[in-house]
């Protein structure tokens, strides 16, 4: 996974699509459903996670040699929890409404598997700079997915985006989109869509490779 030849761009980029935390790795699914019924919440959550994951990757990669493997998990968690608590305190002080809207999920950032997973899989084995990009990429992938889900849910489920009405009054919102079942089904369909897109890309790549390499195979035999 942590191939030394990877460029920083590749490290960053993989989190966006190929290893998207939500759609591909299926990690940290709870916020993807719980706080995406409005774009604002989705964005706030996405950014919080982006910040936590990046900061934590940096911290972990800095201290990685010092941590005893037997308590690796508790120590990493302590680090994450510290960062989250700081975020909580800051939000509470400066954005109290957002703080309320994200409610318990803000605290739950601590246990989002993606953060610990990046710490274990990447930051614990790499230096600061790649770790930063890894965290930033994964966080961005997460935040992007959150916002995407949020936009779709809010747009169809309420007819608004960021609370501003987008569709005309004649639009009768499909309420289910902002309710739990709609969230589940939407993500299911999005995962399928992304798989289809992946397959399509794969096919294109293969077709190109083939066109270049092998001669035509049509039979001319009698």
């Amino acid at each position: 996974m942590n191939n030394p030849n990877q460029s920083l761009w590749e490290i960053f980029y993989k989190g966006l699509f190929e290893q998207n935390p939500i759609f591909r790795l299926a990690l940290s699914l709870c916020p993807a459903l719980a706080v995406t019924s409005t774009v604002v919440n989705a964005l706030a959550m996405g950014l919080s996670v982006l910040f936590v994951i990046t900061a934590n990757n940096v911290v972990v990669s800095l201290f990685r040699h010092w941590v005893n493997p037997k308590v690796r998990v508790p120590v990493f968690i302590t680090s994450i929890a510290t960062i989250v608590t700081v975020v909580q305190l800051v939000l509470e002080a400066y954005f109290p409404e957002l703080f309320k809207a994200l409610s318990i999920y803000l605290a739950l950032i601590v246990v989002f598997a993606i953060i610990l997973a990046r710490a274990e899989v990447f930051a614990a084995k790499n230096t600061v700079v790649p770790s930063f990009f890894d965290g930033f990429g994964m966080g961005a992938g997460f935040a992007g997915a959150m916002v995407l889900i949020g936009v779709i849910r809010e747009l169809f489920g309420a007819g608004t985006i960021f609370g501003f009405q987008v569709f005309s009054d004649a639009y009768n919102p499909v309420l289910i989109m902002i309710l739990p079942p709609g969230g589940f089904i939407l993500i299911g369909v999005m995962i399928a869509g992304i798989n289809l897109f992946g397959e399509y890309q794969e096919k294109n790549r293969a077709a190109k490779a083939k066109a270049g390499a092998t001669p035509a195979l049509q039979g001319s035999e009698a």
Partner: protein
Amino acid sequence: MGEYFTLFMGAVIVNNFVLTRFLGLCIFFGVSKNLNASVGMGMAVTSVMTLSSILAWAVYNYVLHPYNLTFLTTIVFVVLIASFVQLLEMIIKKHAPALYNMWGIYLVLIATNCIVLGVPLLNAESHFSFLKSVVHAIGSGVGFALAIILMASLREKLQYADVPKSLQGLGIAFILAGMLALSFFGFSGMIPL
């Protein structure tokens, strides 16, 4: 008595943690491929959550709340639970390797899972009494177990179905969960909490 029953049933069906409150989804989707593992996981989550809730209740009510340190709840609870679960993991690994193999890395995931942290946090936020905390934790665990067992039986059945390739695995699991959640709407409004 009635109050506890309402709390319990509310957590199990009406406001099922997985299907309406979105907690514990990673293990819900991760482990529900196999029915036996799901039964085990359901029990594991219920017991871990109950025990952690007891611990967390004690710490919250004797330390954090009296000394106005509620902003430390997150970090204290998470370290508490993670350490506790890791201890549990070691014991199981040693004494019940078969069980350990079945859960694989998911036992580690329990340690840092939102449902296991979320329930104690909710207990603290709602200032539940000790008994209520325990009932709530058990109810949430049973609700989780119910959801994951149902889900696993559905997914096992779909193994034999002609599911389109792009939906196989996670995609269809989400759609199933959506339909399960839609069915659980039938209980909505039943026990106002």
